[in-house]
């Protein structure tokens, strides 16, 4: 499979087929909480995509050079303290969750400072939602997916490079924007509807989300079809 085909399939898979919100259920909190107005949903989606890209970049670098078994940087550092064959077997993946959450928290902090300095209007419109991106599962989920495609693979040649990791993060974010903007558009109209009292609020949002997820299930199978069409048998 050529590299570009692979990139294209990862992008399509992350954005539509295995949509982060509607297939993996990550990032449900902003999907329910910040989807009242289209502009706000779009802003939130862009912020999440941006942070996700930065976090995926850092996670890929840390995993490849520091955390994974036999990573070059940790092997080099350990070489000063222990013999070379012990250093080659060093495996820091047990620390990966702590490292990832630390990377995400600090990149959110960085983005917050940057936005406050250069885009004060955008900053005030985000309010409390910007720090909340730290606890957005979608970002940690993207990092974990990248990790599972670097550390767990049998053949080292199949491990993802930086380009694949960034594609997953950017298009996962695009999928998040698509889902949350569609949801916000529906909710703007729902406010004018006569909804039975028990269903008002989150309940109807979840049911609409279920119908959306059903619609997105229509993309299932596109993946294998494309794979067969693009790779001559």
């Amino acid at each position, binding site marked *: 499979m050529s590299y570009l085909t692979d990139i294209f399939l990862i992008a399509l898979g992350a954005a539509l087929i295995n949509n982060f919100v509607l297939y993996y*259920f990550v990032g*449900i909190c902003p999907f329910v909480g910040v989807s009242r107005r289209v502009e706000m949903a779009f802003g939130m989606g862009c912020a999440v995509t941006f942070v996700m890209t930065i976090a995926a970049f850092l996670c890929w670098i840390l995993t490849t050079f520091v955390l994974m078994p036999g990573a070059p940087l940790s092997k080099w550092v350990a070489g000063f303290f222990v013999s070379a064959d012990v250093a080659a077997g060093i495996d820091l993946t047990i620390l990966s969750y702590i490292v990832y959450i*630390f990377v995400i928290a600090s990149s959110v902090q960085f983005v917050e400072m940057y936005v406050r300095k250069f885009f004060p209007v955008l900053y005030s419109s985000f309010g409390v939602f910007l720090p909340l991106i730290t606890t957005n*599962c979608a970002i*940690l989920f993207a990092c974990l997916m990248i990790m599972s495609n670097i550390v767990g693979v049998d053949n080292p040649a199949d491990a993802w490079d930086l380009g694949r990791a960034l594609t997953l993060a950017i298009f996962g974010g695009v999928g998040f924007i698509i889902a949350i903007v569609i949801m916000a558009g529906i909710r703007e109209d729902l406010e004018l509807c006569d909804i039975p009292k028990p269903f008002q609020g989150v309940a109807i949002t*979840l049911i609409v989300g279920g119908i959306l997820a*059903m619609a997105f299930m229509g993309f299932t199978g596109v993946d294998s079809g494309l794979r067969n069409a693009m790779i001559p048998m």
Partner: protein
Amino acid sequence: MADQPTATERFIQGILPENPVYRQLLGLCATLAVSNNMKAALTMAASVTFVLLCANVVTSLIRNLLKPHLRIVVFTLTIATFVTIADRFLAAYLYQMSKTLGPYIPLIIVNCIIICRCEVCASKQSVFTAASDAIGQSLGFALALSSIAAIREILGTGMFFGLRVLPAAWPDWVIMALPPGAFLTFGLMLAAINWISSNK
């Protein structure tokens, strides 16, 4: 802090009056993702209980040392440590289950229930109260998760805990075991609970 609820009140509040899933709408990702069969749901609930209990106790022990602007970072790092322990434990003793749950065990780190309980209760009250709050909230979470999982597993596959309960002629509602079923079941349950509590 005279008006803080006591340990018993915290425990009871967690189960129904302030159920983390149905009342506070926290931890929705895990609720939706692992509720397609009972075994996975109960394993998930057990992991959350372990992490929540440990995180609450540790937070409560260090609550006088916490600096206000650094507390969220401290909470997250504490939680991440215990999630790593839980994840390694599952991988060692319940390998198949840990494969099934996949990334949702590490995602406990960003589960809002735990951060919320650390913030609301553990960082303000004594260790005993924090522990009973953790157990109450975890029971509430387990109750909510297993109620959704029971509906989804029975309707989706005709089985309960992997044993067949509906007759073989039952046409499996596969949609209930797939992602849309999670949204629909949870939405309908939420509406039902709103309806019951507004009729009281």
